[in-house]
Each structure stands twice: as C-alpha cells, then as structure tokens.
C-alpha cells in the first residue's frame, strides 16, 4: 500500500510519498529518500519508530484538513490535490489581504453592518461586527476600498469564511 500527496501547512508544502510493507515505511519527503521506519496504528493515531526512538502522533481528519498532534504541538495540514495546485499556480489566486471581499473570521452571528454599496472606506475602517461566544470581532477594510455589495445583515448567522462585503475590483495596470 502507498500514499502520495501534497500536505500544506501554512505556506509550507510537504510532498510526501510513502510505501508500507510488512510494517516498514519507506519513501520520500520533498524528493529526499527517507531512512526506513516502522509505522503502525496506535490509539487514534500513528506510532513511528526508528531504531530505539518512537514518536506517537494523534491524527484526525476533517474533510481535507488533517490534524496531527505531535510532541505537544498541533499541525494543521491541508491535503492539496494536484489539479487545485495547478489552478493556484495559474495566477488567479488571491493572496491574503488582497481579495476583493471581506470574510467572516469566525462562525457566529452578524451584530451589525456599517457600510452600504458605493461607500468608500479607508483602510482599517469598520465594515461589520460579528459575534460568537460573547466576543465581538470587528471586520475591517484591509485597505482603502469601495463597497460593491453587502452580503450580510444584522442578526444573520454566518459561517467562518463567508463573504460579508464585496469590494470593487481595482483597475488592473
């Protein structure tokens, strides 16, 4: 059995290719050959061993999110498929802070919306307020923007990542 895939943590991609045979794991990481190690399932995770050293990782999966707890730290990987990676590389990807919209930072309820279509908002100006767990989070303009559309209303529930306000696309040089 084998696994080949791209695991992305933040902006770091790990190209992993693994083969398991008789409990022994071999393969490559970012193209470099790995020294063989033992691998087995253990208590909701995996036990890796090489020589006398062992590491136990607790692993859980939520769709394409792979969560790994190892040595007291949680690593959050996205399982990236090759087609999506190619699309990202095609130049249509919006970088953080550069998107023509503002999204909800958390799952909660919209407390208030401070803007309407056509409004010009200075960088850092309040667009909306989202509330969850008795905490309010102010969604601010990432830069100087002109509001194109408002997709949220006070009192409505929102998911994390939901678009609240769309901006006019700046003229591209």
């Amino acid at each position, binding site marked *: 059995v084998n696994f080949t895939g791209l*695991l992305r943590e933040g902006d770091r991609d790990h190209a992993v290719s693994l083969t*398991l045979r008789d409990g022994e794991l071999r393969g490559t990481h970012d193209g470099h050959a790995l020294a063989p190690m033992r691998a087995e*399932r253990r*208590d909701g995770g*995996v036990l890796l061993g090489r020589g006398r050293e062992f590491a136990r990782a607790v692993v859980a999966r939520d769709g394409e999110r*792979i969560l*790994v707890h190892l040595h007291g730290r949680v690593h959050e990987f996205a399982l990236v498929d090759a087609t999506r990676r190619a699309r990202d590389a095609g130049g249509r990807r919006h970088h953080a802070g550069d998107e023509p919209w503002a999204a909800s930072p958390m799952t909660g309820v919209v407390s208030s919306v401070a803007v309407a279509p056509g409004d010009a908002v200075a960088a850092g100006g309040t667009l909306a307020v989202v509330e969850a767990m008795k905490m309010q*989070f102010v969604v601010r303009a990432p830069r100087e923007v002109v509001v194109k559309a408002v997709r949220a209303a006070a009192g409505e529930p929102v998911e994390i990542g939901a678009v609240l306000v769309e901006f006019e696309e700046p003229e591209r040089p």
Partner: protein
Amino acid sequence: MVSGVDLVAAQIRLALAGAWTGFPDPAPRGWALECRVCAEDPGLGFAPSTGRILALEVPREPWVRWDGGYDAGNEVTPHYDSLLGKLVCWGEDRAAATERAARALAHLVVLGPRTNVEFLRAVVEHPRFREGRLSTAFLEEEFASSWRRGATCDDATAALAAGAWLLLEGAGGGPRGSAAGAPSPWTSLPGWRAGGGHGP
C-alpha cells in the same frame, strides 16, 4: 488543590453527617496553577473557533486535574463561551507547579477547533513568567496580539505521520477512523470524570 479538600466529597460527607467533622486542616500547602483551555485561535487575535472535537486526550499524570465538560465527538458551538476545560496543576513550590503545567499542556490533545493550548504553554515557559516578573501588561509586552508559533523541527515528521496515517487508514479498508480491529478516537479514549485526577 492547595487545601487537599475535595469539595464535592466534603459536601456529600457534610450532608450525610449533618455536621462539619473529620476534615483535614485546610491550611494551604504548595502552589496550584490553573490554565484555562479555550477554543480560541491565537493566530486570529484569539477569535473563537468552533467545530466538532475530533480527538480529546487529557493528561493522566499525578498532581494534574482536568475539569472539563467536553468529550471527543462533541460540537463546540458559537452559542456558549469558549472555555473547554481547566487544567489545574499542583506542585511543592511555584517552579514545580509551573513545570507540571508545561508538561501537562504538552500532553493535552485537542484536535478539531483551534485552541490556546500551545499559547498557554508558551506563557508558562516564558522566562518572565518563570521568574514571576509579571504585571497586567505582561502579555502585551511579550506576545503579539495575534500569536502563532514558529516553524518547528517536527514539521516534516508531522507531515510524515499524516501521510502514514492516511496510508494506514486506506489499508484498514473500512470507513475512516473505524477500520476493523483498529481503535478509533471515539472508543479508545480513556475514561475521565470532572474533578477526577490526583490531588494532594
């Protein structure tokens, strides 16, 4: 933890006996430290983080108590506050209590919503915290308002663990996390109870 009195047991004994007898002297002894573990994302200015708890492992070591109300499979919703549990650690002195808190935080596993566990560990491991040179401005002075730990030498090992786990899950043949003969986090978690653990 510093008094050695189990308050719940004391209440039951008091109700049964009808009088306050036979309790130990509740003079405080040693130090106790409480870490409030919350479903908050330190990388997002401590905004609340919601979702299903996919795995929860509580440290089971002496002098550590976990008071929590969640188990693996539970949903953390936006309707309540973000507190998942309190990790209370006792030691003969402040240094010992702090050392146990750092170790217990490293052993506490919460997968699903993002949590402040690693941030709490960074706080109790901070030299100023260890030395007790604290003020109400400590967090502002020493930590960014959005805190994210740096890259670690474990990143590649974690990626390999993820790959190995996916591979082994595939090898199991069954639905993920419940392949025959393999323990899933839903069934293999050790039992625990609020107020359990080991107090002095």
